[in-house]
């Protein structure tokens, strides 16, 4: 009898603790909303000075895990200068968008979060704060800022600028006595020579869906010619443009892909980023598809003696359109509804304007600074990229005009093409259809 009584009591205890547990989170939400309102009034009175103030906590949940160490150092430095600020930094290796959505729907928008730049700036617009009138916006370089705009408003900033183009092994080209090809026919000739000499001309990375978008944007830039690439992409999204009308897309792009498959890895659809890096570092491969500034450090770690070259994609027989692309494809955003908006803005302004913050990009993170007048780190790709931009200008970062939903479908369609399951016309038809289907709906 006693035992039964005990068990019933236990049972009730368990249930009630659960209910209490649920209940308390429910009640916590209410004051939180109040607090948000209170703070929104606060910025008017104390705009810059939050030091000496009460302790504040900034929640930062961003992608780009490769810079976790550098960002931790940045935060540590900030916290020694402003001891009242605690920054909870969180990052994730993959599936960032899904995790972010879970947080947003749970009503816990991080104070600093990330998205891709360009089109996705719109997708998260109702959560992000317009930093256009903040010092950070003044300091941001123009190429980066261009991808963060929503109309006149600035809705993001970047951890780094970036360079996209062909990374190549200068040693092989020098040994064979050929220049890096600027036109498609030169490229074909170069491939023949390289493979005759026993090297593999290309490593493709075609197992990764995002490699295709990096290659494709150079051809899109060329197709747009003097016009605006964003308008060309919008025309595709509205179903008004056809691949066939643009020889740069219909002929040259596929000519390039065919060439990379012919002169590329033995198993192109199993080659991923790591395999590409290993192939380049091995010194047996001449050119790398679909990559950019981010692979240099990793490749040099495997083979420090490699002589790296960097240039644009040969598109057709016009050497002028062979350009590198610069800009930033990732955006960090400040939450509009942040409870600690002032403290968050202070932090990001400090990041972009203080001496430590400006030097951080080169010294700690080793990336192309997304700010004006900051020294660039000592990497070949960045130096050569800078030189190319100075000499021939940079292409527009066309990848940002479509979202990754489209790019993933685009990559998969291209994989089918590489695998030989669909032909060129079917591939073009599917790409046109996906553009309308996936991007038309997102608007």
């Amino acid at each position, binding site marked *: 009898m006693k035992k039964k009584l005990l068990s019933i009591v236990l*049972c009730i205890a368990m249930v009630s603790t659960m209910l209490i547990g649920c209940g308390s989170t429910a009640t916590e939400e209410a004051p939180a909303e109040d607090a948000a309102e209170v703070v929104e009034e606060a910025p008017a009175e104390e705009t810059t000075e939050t030091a000496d103030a009460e302790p504040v906590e900034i929640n930062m949940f961003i992608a780009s895990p490769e810079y976790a160490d550098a960002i931790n150092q940045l935060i540590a430095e900030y916290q020694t200068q402003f001891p009242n600020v605690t920054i909870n930094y969180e990052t994730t290796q993959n599936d960032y968008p899904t995790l972010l959505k879970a947080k947003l729907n749970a009503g816990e928008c991080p104070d600093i979060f990330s998205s891709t730049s360009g089109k996705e700036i719109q997708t998260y617009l109702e959560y992000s704060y317009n930093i256009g009138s903040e010092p950070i916006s003044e300091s941001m370089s123009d190429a980066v800022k261009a991808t963060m705009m929503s109309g006149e408003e600035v809705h993001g900033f970047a951890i780094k600028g970036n360079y996209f183009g062909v990374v190549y092994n200068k040693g092989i080209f020098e040994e064979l006595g050929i220049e890096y090809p600027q036109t498609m026919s030169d490229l074909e000739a170069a491939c023949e020579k390289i493979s005759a000499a026993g090297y593999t001309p290309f490593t493709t990375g075609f197992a990764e869906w995002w490699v295709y978008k990096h290659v494709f944007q150079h051809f899109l830039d060329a197709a747009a010619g003097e016009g605006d690439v964003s308008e060309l992409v919008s025309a595709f999204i509205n179903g008004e443009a056809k691949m066939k009308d643009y020889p740069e897309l219909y002929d040259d792009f596929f000519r390039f892909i065919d060439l990379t498959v012919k002169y590329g890895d033995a198993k192109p659809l199993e080659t991923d980023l790591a395999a590409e890096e290993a192939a380049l570092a091995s010194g047996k491969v001449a050119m790398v598809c679909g990559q950019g500034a981010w692979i240099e450090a990793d490749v040099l770690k495997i083979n420090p003696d490699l002589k790296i070259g960097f240039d644009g994609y040969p598109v057709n027989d016009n050497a002028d359109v062979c350009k590198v692309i610069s800009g930033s494809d990732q955006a960090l955003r400040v939450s509009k509804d942040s409870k600690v908006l002032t403290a968050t803005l202070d932090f990001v302004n400090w990041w972009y304007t203080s001496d430590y913050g400006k030097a951080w990009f080169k010294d700690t993170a080793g990336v192309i600074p997304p700010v004006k007048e900051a020294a660039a780190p000592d990497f070949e790709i960045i130096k050569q990229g800078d030189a190319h931009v100075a000499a021939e200008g940079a292409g527009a970062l066309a990848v940002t005009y479509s*979202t*990754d939903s489209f790019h993933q479908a685009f990559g998969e369609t291209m994989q089918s093409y590489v*695998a030989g*399951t669909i032909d060129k016309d079917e591939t073009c038809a599917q790409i046109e259809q996906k553009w309308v289907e996936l991007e038309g*709906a997102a608007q």
Partner: protein
Amino acid sequence: MKLGKQKKMALETFLYTLPALLLVALVIYIPFVLSGFYSFTKWNGIAKEPELIGFGNFVKLFSGDKDFVQSLLFTGKYTLFFMIIANVLALELAVILTKKIKTANLLRGFFFIPYIMSMTIVGFIWKFIFSQGFAKLYEMSQLEVLNLSWLGNPDLAFYSIVFVGVWQSVGFYIVLYIAGLQAVPQDVQEAAIVDGANGVQKFFRVILPLLAPSITTCIFMSLTNSLKVFDIILALTKGGPGASTYSVTLNIYREAFQNNNYGYGAAKSLVFFLIILVLTQLVLRGFKSREVEL
């Protein structure tokens, strides 16, 4: 305050199951009902207010979604291959492992180990074996079969996935079959031998019919598990190459979380739920009716 004994029992049962029930409701039933609601909305998973559009999502789905049909076909093909191979293989191995082999216990352990590993890890291990491992083995042995692009060729990728799926879970079905085999009474088997049945006859005429309950369980489990296949594909091929290995679950996941069509994804998942429900009930009925009692 005197409760009747039955009432008290009922109350006790209710109270005991309540904590579990609440948790299950919280993570399964409530989200299920909510996704039912979302399937009637146009929502990208980000906007603060989903927009109600009635049956729009279902109309779109039934008026022909090529990718969804494609993934249904893939899942069907996978289910068929997985069920047959996993069950036949597990039954064979179970029969061998119930024989008096010295290392039987050890072997049972070996077969079971992959099952305790998480699917994602198994996927990554095999991805490594298929790419780097096979390349090295090919260098050493020059066997052409190792030089095939097992994950890069749309047709081969399917068999790679089936193989890894079976490899991972066959241990589980072996355990179920071993339990069933051990429950087959010795006297019936001896009687069959006395009646002059040879080994094959004994197996197909006596043991197999008596094993029917185990078979039903295993078929049911393998059916539901293979219909819901997800993580192994995500780890091995991510649906590639060229969208050739999309299962329905992966298709739904991508629709909802990557294409930002949360409402449409929810509608797809409801339809898929109904498909699973009907299919499993049919198969279960079919196999139950064939079971024999001693």
